[in-house]
């Protein structure tokens, strides 16, 4: 082998490593954060704390799965928190008519909301940002109207409160629930025909069209699925903490978006996935948990989260260019 060959070989190995590094950047950050926290606080690396960490962000994680679907399709759903709220309110108010009915209604509400979004964005092709902002207001308003602004208390459904609050051999069931939802959405994205088509539509809708993919149906589907997931999450959430007041779910939206973006699923669509969102969730969870352990006041927490989002997006933009450079 000549000198030229060996140089080429070693450069390509180096290239491969750099490429890997940039593509798995968030994973590295997660590991670094994890290690830092271990040193910062004794309380951190205990089983109890880790469980707590995930318990608190479990519902957010479930919603993030739905949001990931929408974002891969080059959109976003700013009404997700409102859907969660409306489903939860419906769930509680229908409970007097029977448990099974109330669960079905809650989920149906989510699906209908998702359908409204999907119709205007997928078929009419209006601006997804403003549409979901507007439907967010609509859904919140509907929640207010139905609940007459009162605080509501749910009667916890046995099965769902089991999911929400108990543990199996000490391992919180809600985390299992989260993992199951993640696995299902993950499989949907990576292993089904519809999932593959979604990536195509998000990457390049013109080419997808030429390949015979019905892009408006696919996009509509993502919003409907997101609505469905929010509906399910609403039931579990309300079973876990049976009090619901309209408006309490509002901050979730920003957190969910942060989680997805942190993980590396870009808002430009066509790439990313549940694996990435899971990492984003873990990072978010650690940050959340750390801020609680370090007793950082709520207001500063919001500030920090906002800065993290901006940094994450900036970093992702920087990353994308670097990755392309090393292809």
């Amino acid at each position, binding site marked *: 082998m000549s000198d030229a060959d060996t140089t080429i070989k070693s450069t390509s190995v180096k290239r491969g490593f750099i490429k890997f590094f940039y593509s798995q950047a968030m994973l590295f950050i997660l590991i670094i954060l994890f290690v830092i926290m271990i040193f910062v606080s004794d309380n951190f690396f205990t089983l109890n704390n880790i469980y707590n960490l995930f318990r608190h962000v479990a519902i957010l994680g479930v919603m993030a799965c739905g949001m990931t679907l929408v974002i891969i399709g080059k959109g976003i759903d700013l009404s997700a928190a409102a859907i969660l709220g409306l489903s939860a309110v419906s769930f509680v108010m229908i409970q007097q008519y029977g448990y099974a009915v109330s669960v079905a209604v809650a989920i149906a509400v989510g699906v209908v909301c998702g359908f409204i979004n999907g119709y205007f964005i997928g078929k009419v092709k209006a601006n997804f940002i403003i549409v979901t902002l507007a439907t967010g207001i609509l859904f919140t308003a509907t929640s207010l109207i139905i609940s007459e602004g009162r605080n509501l208390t749910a009667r916890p459904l046995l099965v769902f409160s089991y999911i929400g609050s108990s543990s199996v051999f000490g391992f919180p069931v809600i985390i299992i629930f989260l993992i199951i939802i993640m696995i299902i959405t993950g*499989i949907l994205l*990576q*292993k*089904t*025909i519809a999932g*593959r*088509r979604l*990536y*195509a539509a998000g*990457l*390049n809708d*013109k*080419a*997808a*069209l*030429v*390949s*015979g*993919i*019905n892009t408006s149906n696919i996009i509509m589907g993502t919003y409907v699925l997101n609505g469905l997931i929010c509906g399910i999450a609403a039931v579990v959430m309300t079973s876990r903490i049976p009090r619901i007041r309209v408006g309490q779910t509002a901050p979730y939206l920003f957190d969910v978006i942060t989680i997805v973006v942190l993980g590396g699923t870009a808002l430009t669509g*066509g*790439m990313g996935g549940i694996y990435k969102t899971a990492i984003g969730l873990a990072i978010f969870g650690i940050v959340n948990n750390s801020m609680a352990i370090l007793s950082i006041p709520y207001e500063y927490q919001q500030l920090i989260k906002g800065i993290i989002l901006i940094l994450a997006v900036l970093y992702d933009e920087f990353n994308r260019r670097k990755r392309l450079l090393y*292809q």
Partner: protein
Amino acid sequence: MSSNEYLLEMIDISKYFPGVQALDGVSFKLEKGQVFAIVGENGAGKSTLIKILSGSYTNDHGEIKIEGKKINIRNPFHAMQLGINTIYQETSLVPEISVAENIFLGRQPIKGGKLRWKQMFDDSQKILDDLSINLNPRSIVIDLSTAQQQLIEIAKAFSREAKIIIMDEPTSAIAEDDTENLFNIIRGIVKKGTSVIYISHRLKEIFRIAEMVTILRDGKTVTTIKVSETSEMDIVKYMVGRDIGDIFGEKTYEVSGELILEAKNIARRGFFKNISFNLKRGEILGLSGLVGAGRSEIVRSIFGLDKLDSGEILVEGQRVNIKNSTDGINKGIAFVSEDRRTESIIQGFTVRENVTILLLKEVISKIGLISTKKEARLAKKYIDEFSIKTPSMEQLVMNLSGGNQQKVALAKCLSTSPKILILDEPTKGIDVGAKKEIHTLVKELANSGIGVIMVSSELPEIIGMCHRVLVIREGKLIKEFRKEELNEEDLMQVAVGNIQSEVKNL
């Protein structure tokens, strides 16, 4: 004439892109106050030349001199400052503001912190009057026709004291009356000392308006002569005259008589009308003509990407109603688009993902999930079958060469075992080696019974590959050529309109 008396000199200009020498030693000289035409078939190098002049590309080799001074055109803005204004077919006007403001964009008369509207309107009225352009400077651009918008661009360029105005296919989107109007205005500008470089396929127009013409072919200058000293027929001869040689090898095999596709009087308003033809199993049918004649629109409508306004399509004798691309695929039609980058392959996908996208139903396991093993096997099969050169199937298609990308597009389309394959400019921008491979592939496919429709602007390709050729001009089917009748010159003569023979029915 000494160097100083030429407005523009292009000396030995060359430009190389990976796989193709776009320009090879092109030279010409432009005088002040002259209308200078540049002709050549598609791929001859015209658009590369314009892009270099307008600052979008840099030439690898050669010199550009303006009024005797050597210059390097750094970017489009610099080109404008040098006095070179380019008017493309896509308008570069701001739609929702007035004509006057568009003319003065970026240099509106602002005195004492206040924009003088009256002055702007008056000044632009003067400019328009000067050029005999009949437009109200207060009109909003988006309300005007394409022809009128073009005139605004000329007025804009002229008012910036353009020395050279380059016009790229200016008449392709406007009607006949407007064309005469346009020419009058061009004559007016030229009298005032501005020169116009006029690129067009419409030879008749060149004889109406241009003084000099240069013909490009395969990136080289064939000749530069006075328009008065030549004829349309001669120009076509210059455009195509080349030694074809036998690059295409064996091309004779019998085609069965079975009709696989029939188009009956299909039309799409504004694009094409009265198109009727049929396609036999195993036949390669060529669609020839100038860019913009409507060929792509015809095939896209057949596939379902655009809607037909009238007419019928029959596949294997059965009338079909194709409303979208999914229908097209279901009816057995495969389509490889002209725009490879944005339409025929999915850029962010890997080779594997692109190849299997239409065939996912074949690779799912019993429970309906995609099986990685089956998918990989399928992808490998197609990669081998089409000799797609890629380090691995996980490579992103955007990193492949143009030729290999096209093979991926082909593999993808053919994965559904279509009955009809439509190719739109299949070897555009691809190196010679890959071109040959694709041609061989297409011939094999036809041989196996698939009907192929090939839209191409490369005459040697059309002649070498097709059993029959239809020439389309301005949305109408003009003439059909049988294989024996095929030669470059005739094809081009019909395409530009020198030979008139509208086909009534086939």
